[in-house]
């Protein structure tokens, strides 16, 4: 599919400069944006640490699950011993009150969970949303009406409330299928984010396809007797990658933040899986005495979402330079 994208994107290309493809042009513009490049490297760094988390924690001799009561101060109700939430050489970000688990390890493993959920959900959204959007836009007629009504219905659901309300339903179903409680939460989050995310992309894609299907190259493919499936996925799809990429990059931070919010509320990730949202929820009980416990996961969450937002903005500008710094 990637090779198709490069070759077939040409007919749709904006003004061609020295025979560059749309993708090369976009990359050039993106490279010139310093903030975007900084955000990109930051994201690569974050992904790197998340992927290498087991290695890093092994090197530091910590892990996210082991309780360690020796770093707590029993005379203070098991708060971390020492200043700044127990920050020391062994525990660079301090330890968790009550359990003594290493915060750096929990932060790194929490990032893995967050990113896993966001990336999986977005992948499903991209595939489902694009397919349905293309079919609705190209076929038109009753299929389009049906899909239109269906997306209307899904968009009428109060989103966060539904995510919360569905959590017992889905997690219990998944556990009945033999999944462990903590894994069922991860899968549930992926499913609900994907389920409530695809209609937006489908609408966007449908709108694009409506105008694409009137274009000459599609007409030519139809006239030469190409099968519909080929037209949809070889002729139409390659012209849609710009909106898909933009949608995906701006969806990831939203999902990361929503996951943290759900875990904060107690309906997302559960123990013993580390999660930034849950860390923040736990920090509430201690934040008058151990403020670092609030700041560390909160700042991490902010940085990731911020970096994704800057990068997403820049990607959109690069792919569609007419809009400039734009609203979503």
């Amino acid at each position, binding site marked *: 599919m990637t090779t198709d994208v490069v070759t077939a994107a040409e007919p749709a290309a904006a003004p061609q400069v020295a025979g560059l493809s749309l993708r090369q042009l976009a990359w050039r513009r993106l490279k010139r944006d310093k903030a975007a490049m900084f955000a990109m490297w930051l994201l690569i760094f974050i992904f790197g640490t998340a992927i290498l988390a087991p290695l890093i924690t092994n090197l530091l001799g910590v892990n996210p699950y082991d309780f360690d009561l020796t770093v707590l101060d029993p005379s203070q109700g098991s708060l971390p011993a020492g200043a700044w939430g127990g920050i020391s050489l062994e525990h660079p970000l301090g330890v968790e009150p009550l359990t003594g688990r290493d915060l750096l390890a929990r932060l790194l493993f929490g990032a893995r969970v967050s990113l896993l959920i966001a990336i999986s959900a977005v992948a499903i959204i991209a595939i489902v949303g694009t397919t349905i959007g293309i079919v609705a836009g190209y076929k038109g007629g009753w299929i389009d009406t049906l899909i239109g009504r269906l997306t209307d219905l899904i968009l009428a659901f109060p989103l966060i409330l539904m995510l919360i309300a569905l959590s017992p339903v889905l997690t219990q179903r998944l556990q009945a299928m033999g999944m462990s409680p903590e894994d069922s939460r991860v899968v549930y989050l992926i499913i609900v984010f994907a389920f409530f995310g695809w209609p937006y992309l489908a609408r966007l894609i449908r709108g694009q396809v409506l105008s694409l299907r009137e274009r000459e190259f599609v007409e030519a493919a139809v006239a030469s007797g190409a099968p519909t499936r080929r037209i949809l996925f070889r002729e139409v799809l390659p012209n849609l990658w710009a909106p898909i990429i933009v949608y995906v990059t701006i969806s990831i931070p939203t999902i990361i933040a929503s996951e943290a919010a759900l875990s904060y509320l107690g309906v997302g990730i559960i123990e013993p899986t580390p999660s930034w949202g849950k860390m*923040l929820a736990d920090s509430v009980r201690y934040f008058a005495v151990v403020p670092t416990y609030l700041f560390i996961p909160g700042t991490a969450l902010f940085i990731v979402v911020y970096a994704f937002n800057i990068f997403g903005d820049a990607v959109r500008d690069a792919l569609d330079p007419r809009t*400039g710094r734009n609203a979503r």
Partner: protein
Amino acid sequence: MTAYVIRRILIGLMILVLLSMAVFLLFDLLPADPAALTCGKNCTPEIIEINRVRLGLDLPLWQQYIEFVKGLFAGRTYGSGTAAFTCAAPCLGYSFRKGEEVTPLILEALPVTIYLAVGAFVVWITAGVLLGIFAALRRGRWQEKVTLGGALVGYSFPSFFIGLLLLFFVVIRWRLLPYPSYVPPTEDPVRFLQTMILPWITLALVFAAFYIRLTRNQMLETLSEDYIRTARSKGLPERTVIGKHGLRAGLTPIVTAAGLDLAGLLGGAIIVESVFSLPGLGRLAITSVLDSDLSIIVATVLVAGSFIVIANIVVDLLYAVIDPRVRLT
């Protein structure tokens, strides 16, 4: 126009019916037996069966749905004989967990959420639109960069983190405000304001960012239109050009977004209500989920969904009022 309004309302009603059916269907998938959730530790199979019949949970799903709809419009009676009790219309169900009807619980929580949502709405619309216009008028200068940069920062802060930070600094560190605990404004207006100000700011910070960006883009787009040039060349004062001609045409997407965001919040600002322990719809929803109190969950989802559907209709109708170019057919 009238035909359009009627059709729009009918579609809205249809979506509400579908929404309620979908909610019923979804919760029927729950493997847990709702009747078994109606009594606590000293549950016996007999009590469960009695409750099942009393609540009508022994009926097939479609009949349960019809009973629910009937209850909504005409009220319904649970059980029969001496154990019977009536739930007056609009009856949204009965919570065995709490031993109360659901409608009064919702009505009790609703004002809190309305105060929260409307208060925050006023702050973020004012700030968002004004700053957005400001950014558009200072295009390409440092003021624009700072405003938009700040907006992106605000946009990236998860609402519960902002809320917790405000609580930490304003209440705990600097002791500028007492710890939030909700009282109705009729009882103690000062305490009410002291409690609500941080939640309002939190929500406003999260939402304003989006409106700054939206307003700026709309303004830039409309300010390059021909009729703006005409207005300027007529010698109209800049204030009139911006306020009357520019803003009005660019207002449509702002109104759409504002209407839908407000409706979403009226269904329960779950996160902010949780952070500041406000007893609104969102908190009611989250506590019922954690208690597996199905009847309340269904009711809150329906109430929130109704707000969204109504907002969609209102927003569509407002289009015609704001933008004279829009003709509804």
